[in-house]
């Protein structure tokens, strides 16, 4: 008798609590003063937060990344939705590409955008090929899009571009990091 009475309260209560806990992790918003950008090798933190990734998606459009990379399919610049990465597809390597540029056209944004924005853009770029958790990647965009939303993309197996020796790519990435 007692149990039957408690159930109608406990079950919805647990459901609400679970929803709140999940919501906290997904949507916690870190406003300024800005947290220092993650140290190299910290690939996790910036990717766990849906707000950061959605900010990255907005910045990708604001800073006209789409001018060369289009919606991720590439154009003047290489595509970002596939598994091929000339300079590495990990977050720190993408941040390096954004901040310090790459040969043949990728401009350097260091000093032009705050470092923490580069990390957000990099997290969004990784979501384009399905590297992020689905509850973190963006569900929808403000602009028309031909592909499925980032949260519903299958995970591409990121590997270094087979046309380049792996050691050369990593060396190039490390060298530009050293110039910093």
């Amino acid at each position, binding site marked *: 008798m007692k149990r039957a009475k408690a159930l109608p309260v406990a079950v919805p209560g647990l459901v609400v609590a679970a929803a709140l806990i999940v919501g906290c992790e997904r949507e916690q918003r870190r*406003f*300024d*003063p*800005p947290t220092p950008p993650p140290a190299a090798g910290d690939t996790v933190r910036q990717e766990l937060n849906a707000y950061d990734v959605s900010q990255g998606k907005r910045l990708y459009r*604001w800073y006209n990344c789409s001018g060369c990379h289009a919606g991720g399919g590439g154009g003047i610049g290489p595509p970002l939705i596939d598994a091929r990465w000339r300079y590495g597809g990990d977050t720190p390597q993408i941040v390096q590409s954004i901040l310090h540029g790459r040969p043949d056209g990728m401009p350097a944004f260091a000093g032009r*955008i*705050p470092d*923490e924005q580069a990390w957000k853009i990099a997290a969004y770029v990784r979501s384009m090929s399905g590297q992020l958790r689905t509850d973190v990647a963006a569900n929808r965009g*403000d602009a028309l899009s031909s592909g499925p939303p980032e949260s519903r993309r299958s995970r591409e197996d990121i590997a270094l571009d087979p046309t380049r020796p792996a050691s050369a790519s990593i060396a190039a990435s490390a060298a530009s990091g050293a110039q910093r």
Partner: protein
Amino acid sequence: MIGNTSGGWQDALLAHGPQAAQVLDLWRVTLAVCSVVFALVLLALLLALWRAPRGTHETAPLIAPDDRIPLRRVGGAIAASALLLLGLLGGSVATDRALAQLVLRDALHVELTGRQWWWSIHYDDPDPSRGFDTANELHLPLGRPVILTLRSGDVIHSVWIPSLAGKKDLIPGRTTTLTLRADRAGLYRGQCAEFCGAQHAWMGLPVSVDEPARFEAWADAQRAAAKPPADELARRGQRLMLNGACAMCHAIRGTDANARQGPDLTHLAARGTLAAGTLPNDAAHLAAWVSNPAAHKPGVNMPSATFSPDELQAVVAYLRGLQ
């Protein structure tokens, strides 16, 4: 100054244009009808209490079972309610018609785009080279009709200048228009009236209504490109802005900064407020805003600048010179 909040500058009960006056009339009629109805309901309640059977200290009141429904009274109340509601509906339709009949000859065309959390403003002109961009402060000529073309850059916003017009939504992917005329010169305040995110409450729109000659003088000043920096300090500030992160989002006409993601800064120093009516526009607040915008508007899309103190001073000197 626009920072002055006295004198009912954001007050729906002080109409200073035909559109706001129409809305105010409808509001008064509605208030009167609802007040009368409220008073009648209270009176009926008091009457029922007064006429209810009473008991004594020892006996409960004697309530005789009464199965008759007072058809006439209930029917009369329903009919009166329906008539009054129909009357209000008619008043609402008549107000809408009157709002649509504002004479728009020789109207000024202004495009107003809502963004999180500021207003982008473009003044149209039949001669395209005379159109110009500004932000966060609307200037209107006295007595001349205005057609505001409303757009949104991100989420749904709503513009409401209570003393001049009713509110109207700004909807992504859709264009809406709001027509108004201001019949009294002065300063007013508009406000975003549709919850649009963390800083919705700080999305204000100061509105300055001026005599036509004064308005034209203001518009001519706005059309001009930005003043070149006056001294070495301001020149340094300009270099810092054009070579740093500022130019990624802001436009300063006459320089290489042409981005459209943030407010146009060409004549920033001529505006009365910073950050969409949030802060007074003076050197101290400008420095505080540039060095940490999120301290004043948490969640704002403008990142904190990483200038050293003397760099910040140079940037502020340059911005203060953008008259």
